[in-house]
């Protein structure tokens, strides 16, 4: 009864906007789910899912995209954590500049990024004014292309990863924690590994999840660099099939939700960082 009375106290317009928001987000999702279940005429079935998962190309592209996502996350963490840490600790005046840089992917479309990458890395790296080649074009071999696309994905995921990590560091007061660790004899690597990283775990997981979602569904970089990733596969599938792309879209959405659930489970207690009084 108390709960009902509390609901009644919420103003009409609050309910209106909440319901509108829920409908806006969930109706397309419901439509996708409904469509994916209607492959067999007049019957609700999981046939579209069976067919989509049975395609060896799905497993291959999805597996490859997961590999790219994991590598992107590792490189992003290795790049962003020390950067955000150092900016917060020693270079607070550079914070605006770094934030501006990390926001560039919002301003520069992925198509421009990929053309830039191809333009620069499709020719061999030579010592200027000589014919000595230092490195073959990265686009010419598989490892090189992987490096290139992972680099591109790191850039695309930068706004999400940097913001997550930076916010995480702000909430735990990294400066004081670092000084506390150092006063007890810890060196820089120990401080970062044992004190800083565990305390920005939630932020890292959030940033990683967002990066994962971006990489797995990304189409433009993967298409132009010609790699067999999940995004282009889904795009191609959608051009000549109807139900399977819907099934795969919904499945990847569930996967993302599952990942979010795992994050909540893993980091459930960490949000209580303030003291009891």
């Amino acid at each position: 009864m108390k709960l009902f009375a509390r609901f009644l106290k919420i103003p009409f317009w609050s309910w209106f906007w909440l319901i509108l928001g829920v409908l806006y987000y969930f109706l397309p999702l419901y439509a996708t789910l409904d469509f994916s279940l209607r492959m067999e005429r007049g019957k609700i079935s999981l046939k579209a899912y069976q067919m989509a998962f049975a395609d060896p190309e799905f497993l291959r592209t999805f597996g490859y995209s997961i590999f790219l996502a994991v590598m992107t996350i590792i490189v992003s963490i290795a790049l962003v954590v020390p950067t955000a840490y150092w900016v917060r600790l020693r270079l607070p005046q550079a914070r605006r500049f770094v934030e501006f840089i990390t926001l560039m992917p919002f301003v520069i479309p992925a198509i421009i990024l990929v053309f830039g990458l191809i333009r620069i890395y499709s020719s061999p790296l030579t010592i200027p004014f000589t014919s000595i080649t230092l490195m073959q074009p990265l686009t010419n071999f598989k490892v090189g292309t992987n490096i290139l696309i992972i680099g591109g994905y790191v850039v695309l995921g930068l706004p999400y990863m940097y913001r997550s990590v930076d916010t995480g560091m702000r909430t735990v007061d990294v400066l004081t924690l670092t000084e506390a660790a150092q006063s007890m004899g810890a060196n820089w690597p120990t401080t970062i590994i044992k004190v800083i990283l565990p305390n920005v775990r939630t932020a890292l997981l959030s940033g990683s999840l967002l990066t994962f979602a971006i990489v797995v569904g990304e189409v433009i970089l993967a298409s132009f660099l010609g790699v067999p990733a999940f995004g282009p596969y889904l795009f191609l599938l959608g051009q000549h099939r109807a139900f399977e792309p819907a099934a795969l879209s919904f499945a990847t959405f569930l996967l993302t939700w599952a990942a979010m659930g795992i994050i909540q489970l893993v980091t459930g207690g960490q949000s209580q960082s303030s003291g009891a009084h």
Partner: protein
Amino acid sequence: MAYLELDNISKIFGKTTAVADFNLKVERGELVSFLGPSGCGKTTTLRMVAGFETPTNGKVVINGKDATNLPPNQRDVGMVFQAYALFPNMTVAGNISFGLKIARKSNNEIKKRVDEMLELIHMPKFGNRYPYQLSGGQQQRVALARALALSPQVLLLDEPLSALDAKIRVNLRAEIRAIQRELGITAIYVTHDQEEALSISDRIVVMYDGRTEQIGTPFQIYNFPETAFVASFIGTLNAFNAEIVDVQQKILKIEGINVVTAEDLEGKKNGDKVMIAIRPERLNFSSEQKKANLIDCTIANITFLGSIVRIQVKVGEINLFMDTFNNPFLDLPRIGDKAEITCSKEAVIFLKQ
């Protein structure tokens, strides 16, 4: 030789001098407080001892060893921070054992030391709790235990009680002092709270605008302030300009009233201007006891402050504060009453201008 020596250290940030020509010798087992208002350089000085700031000039010597350029993790100093700075991802025991693990102590040794520290802070059953499960006072006690676990050469406390409420602050400062005495550890304590500094310290360094104003025992600092700043910062004070009218008899004139002092007037002559001060508690009504100086006044205000009653009196154009101990049978005058107050000649002290 002093255990901790700060030899003429200065710290300049850009165009701002945060600390200038700071000199201090701290003996082993001594607790010295840095006291001053915000921005006076006390925390910067402490951070130079800890190694978080490098002095622009001067030397930091700990136990005979020049530590000026040593990084913080090689100085063997323990630090307690204002914001506790406990590691949120570790339990109380994990926090206390952090430094011991880095020092590669054996598991048995670590367990024994953690138990000792938990006993020391009276929290033997809290080892498995996380910082967020503790109150502010408990967190600060754990922070103290963590800093002491490695038996550091010097313990540094940076306003450790500022974030706590008044009652806990009073209890915890007594606990900190007891632990410091029990372990005989050399400690530097930064605070802006004069009562805290007076109650906890062997000696106090009063700082203002990056400079040392006075170094002395709490008794010396309170009763014999050397500068106008120290006098005004520590406790309530009646301070005013006076003129020497008779060097031989040590008589001064304030607002047309003659006052006798016990201060040494050597080198001074009649007509010299001086700044003098009288503590409110050294004034009382002449009806209780007559002393060397008798001053006619009018009662301007009476403020009840719990254990004391503060009476504001007007003497000509100047206002004086007089403190008297509260008791239930106190016969207080009324505002506007005429009265006569008195103080000894020793109560009239000179201040450096």
